[in-house]
């Protein structure tokens, strides 16, 4: 069955640096992959979606890449700020159903 692995260790970076989070998947390539932000005690918030035929997507300071050969997506936050501190979840879909497969998430702390 399809599985997702995200950085298991929490990521600590200095304000202003670029944070890079990894999402690896096994088996077949998903139709698309999504990234969400989750703050403690809150529901996830959608950030970006990238499809299997796309290499890169950008939104303001956020960038997502998708490498179907490596079976990997990278999520970048440039010029990071303390307000970016949260858990970031990766989720993928095969496209033929309405369900997402979720990673455990990576905790990001941006230090001032």
């Amino acid at each position: 069955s399809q599985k997702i692995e995200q950085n298991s260790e929490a990521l600590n970076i200095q304000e202003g640096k670029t944070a890079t989070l990894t999402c690896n998947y096994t088996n077949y390539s998903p139709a698309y992959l999504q990234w969400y932000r989750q703050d403690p005690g809150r529901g996830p918030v959608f950030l970006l979606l990238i499809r299997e035929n796309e290499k890169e997507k950008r939104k303001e300071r956020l960038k997502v890449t998708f490498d179907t050969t490596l079976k990997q997506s990278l999520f970048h936050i440039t010029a990071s700020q303390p307000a970016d501190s949260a858990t970031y979840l990766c989720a993928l879909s095969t496209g033929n159903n309405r369900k997402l497969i979720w990673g455990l998430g990576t905790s990001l702390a941006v230090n001032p």
Partner: protein
Amino acid sequence: DAMVIQNPRYQVTQFGKPVTLSCSQTLNHNVMYWYQQKSSQAPKLLFHYYDKDFNNEADTPDNFQSRRPNTSFCFLDIRSPGLGDAAMYLCATSNWGLGDEKLFFGSGTQLSVL
């Protein structure tokens, strides 16, 4: 401008006492999901409705039931909560089939079982 609203925000119930969590949406989305999330774990899909069509997950215990009386509302019923059911319950919606597959989540209901 909350689009997916969950009530209550916090719910405390007693072991074995039925509890109902509610979710409403103003997005007119055709799919509504219920997820269970425990600390440091991924959201776990319990079931979802596609319009009126109920889709249960194979590993969702019978203790968990759901109702969707109309497009806007969906309820999660836990018939006999156990200590292991203490978790965050998340409702989400999506507009399936229209090229917009992202999920919109509510703020969640944190359930405690005493």
